[in-house]
């Protein structure tokens, strides 16, 4: 009898014996499922992983298909970048928070912009009323950007900016600030999110319709390949898709579908895949289902490597690697018993590290209530540092590889993701699937199912629908000073009075002409920001030429 036959026989006998005992000692639940509704077996054995070919499916770290990680030494070489998303109020206040975080041992910056900035409105726009400086820092012009990065060495830190529809404008401002400090664009390291498709689907800060939005994105790809070679030109994001209610499988599937759409757009714009693909980066969520999350990251790497190699014929291994940032799951945090969130964040951060993330943001315990206070941000950063320096999980590469369960789950997520990708391909790709509302509907259905499961007690959230406690309202929450808007508007007024308005108009006129044609818009946007044209003025020019996106509303 072969080893396999022996195992099958032993397993069958064990299963019969165990099933018999169930009458007396039933399991806790009739069905065990992952968050993506994949059934979980009682136990996993070599029988569940026998289809896996080690070299083809897992490979070695840093080698195709990168299941085990994108670098050979992973965290033995360099720990992940600890990068807390931050920003609120004015540029001065945010600059102070960045300096505080760097002093606490954070290794990269991550800029949160307020909603008017993200939607391309200046602080004095009527729609900005009440929103200025609330969920991030208000940036109207290069002047604000100079303040935001004052005395921060841009050639030494890497900076991630959560900016999408007006990403070209904020990147141009960053380049201009560096230039003024004598730092060439080629020395800059960082990321712009620049992922408009997930804005249509899940995050909502879109401005222009898909076609001109894709053009802005591919203009950035082309410009950065020449001028800012170390810049991550896009962060293709599953984070917000997951927060909107998607399952882990949907998160990966819809993100990679968006990724395919960007690669196709860039190739259609005449770019060579290996010129831009090495700078594509990704952004995922980490929720509480530890093993499913780890398997998700591993599956995402394997699927993307095959897409880039087999479908787009990328030759450079860097074009085939899925590098990603992770943020722990905001929607998993509870306003009830907020200190419980510290534990959730630790589990989620562990999942990200076991999954091989390149950088990590850990949420603060008070984020279901308000923007995080300084103390709670420090605790969140300390959580990462404890994982990095005390837990031992960073000392070997991909430590969960070979686990019958994790490998089996990795393969099952891969299979489910590929099924979604086939379906989206058949619809004509991600842009069409979004225009038809398919992706939005899938996410909404998952969000509603999750809520109903929770209300029926089929999903337990500690402190929320079980183990509740009476509590005092939390104290010490961060409040954004409501005078931010007045101060910001006054500053903007002074700038407009002071700058060379004829030069601004000339730049904007040239930008308009270029937008009507097909030239790369980045150099013209860079000239405009250097003339101190405001974000709102630049976006208004583009709105005139491109029009605005109007979504179809479903629920």
């Amino acid at each position, binding site marked *: 009898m072969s080893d396999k036959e022996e195992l099958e026989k032993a397993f069958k006998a064990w299963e019969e014996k165990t099933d018999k005992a169930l009458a007396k000692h039933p399991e806790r639940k009739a069905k065990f499922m992952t968050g993506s509704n994949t059934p979980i077996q009682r136990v996993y054995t070599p029988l569940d992983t026998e289809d896996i070919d080690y070299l083809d499916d897992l490979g070695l770290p840093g080698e195709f298909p990168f299941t085990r990680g994108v670098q050979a030494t992973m965290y033995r070489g360099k720990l992940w970048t600890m990068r807390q998303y931050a920003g609120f109020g004015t540029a001065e206040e945010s600059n102070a928070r960045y300096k505080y975080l760097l002093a606490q041992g954070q290794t990269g910056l991550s800029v949160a912009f307020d909603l008017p900035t993200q939607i391309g409105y200046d602080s004095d726009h009527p729609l900005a009323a009440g929103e200025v400086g609330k*969920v991030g820092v208000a940036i109207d012009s290069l002047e604000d950007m100079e303040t935001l990065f004052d005395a921060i060495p841009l050639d030494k830190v890497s900076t991630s900016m959560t900016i999408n529809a007006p990403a070209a404008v904020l990147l141009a401002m960053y380049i201009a600030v560096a230039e003024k400090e004598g730092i060439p664009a080629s020395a800059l390291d960082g990321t712009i999110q620049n992922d408009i498709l997930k804005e249509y689907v899940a995050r*909502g800060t879109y401005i222009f319709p898909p076609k001109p939005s894709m053009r802005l994105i591919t203009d950035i790809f082309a410009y950065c390949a020449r001028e800012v070679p170390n810049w991550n030109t896009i962060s293709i994001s599953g984070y917000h898709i997951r927060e909107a209610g998607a399952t882990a499988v949907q998160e990966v599937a819809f993100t990679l579908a968006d990724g395919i759409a960007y690669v196709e757009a860039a190739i259609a714009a005449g770019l060579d895949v290996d010129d831009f693909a090495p700078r594509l980066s990704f952004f995922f969520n980490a929720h509480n289902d530890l093993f499913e999350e780890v398997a998700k990251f591993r599956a995402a790497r394997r699927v993307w490597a095959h897409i880039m190699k087999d479908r787009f014929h990328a030759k450079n291994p860097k074009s085939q690697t899925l590098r990603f940032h992770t943020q722990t799951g905001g929607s998993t945090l509870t306003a009830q018993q907020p200190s419980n969130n510290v534990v959730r964040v630790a589990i989620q951060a562990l999942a990200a590290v076991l999954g091989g993330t390149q950088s990590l943001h850990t949420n603060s315990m008070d984020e279901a209530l308000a923007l995080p206070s300084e103390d709670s941000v420090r605790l969140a950063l300390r959580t990462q540092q404890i994982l990095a320096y005390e837990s031992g999980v960073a000392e070997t590469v991909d430590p969960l590889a070979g686990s019958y369960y994790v490998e089996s789950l990795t393969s099952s997520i891969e299979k489910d993701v590929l099924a979604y990708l086939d379906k989206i391909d058949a619809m004509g790709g991600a842009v069409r699937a979004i225009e038809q509302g398919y992706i939005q509907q899938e996410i909404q259905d998952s969000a*509603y199912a999750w809520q109903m499961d929770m209300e029926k007690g089929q999903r337990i959230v500690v402190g929320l629908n079980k183990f509740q406690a009476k509590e005092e309202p939390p104290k010490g929450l961060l409040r954004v000073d409501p005078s931010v808007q007045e101060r910001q508007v006054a500053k903007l007024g002074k700038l407009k009075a002071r700058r060379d308005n004829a030069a601004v108009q000339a730049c904007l006129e040239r930008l308009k002409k270029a937008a009507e044609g097909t030239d790369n818009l980045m150099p013209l946007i860079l000239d405009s920001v250097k003339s101190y044209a405001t974000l709102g003025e630049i976006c208004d020019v583009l709105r005139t030429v491109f029009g605005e996106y109007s979504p179809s509303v479903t629920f």
Partner: protein
Amino acid sequence: MDRKIRVVVAKPGLDGHDRGAKVIARALRDAGMEVIYTGLRQTPEQIVNTALQEDADVIALSILSGAHNYLFPRVMELLKENGADDILVFGGGVIPEEDIPFLKSKGIAEIFGPGTPTSVTVDFIKEHVKLNLENK
């Protein structure tokens, strides 16, 4: 009376977080109400116009961007100006506890924080709309 309760679920301001608004909209519909969801980026003027046009009994406002202290009272002012302040208005989202007394003083009937079961919201609407009708 067999007329269904009519609810406008609205997202005031620039906030794009609409998971909660959509879940609430669906739960209210499943509970037998007539639901109009406005979509994102609604000004207080647009929300009040929609409520008037749709002859709404209820407006449900969802916001997670922190702009509630400006936008919610503005909706209430406009309702008053239009003689429509009998419409039941409540809010949800990330709203600090200490802001709730101020919002209630402006006429917001209730604030439902994160983690509120949809059944609580459904019951709240049914009870208050009934009271509103009896008082008419």
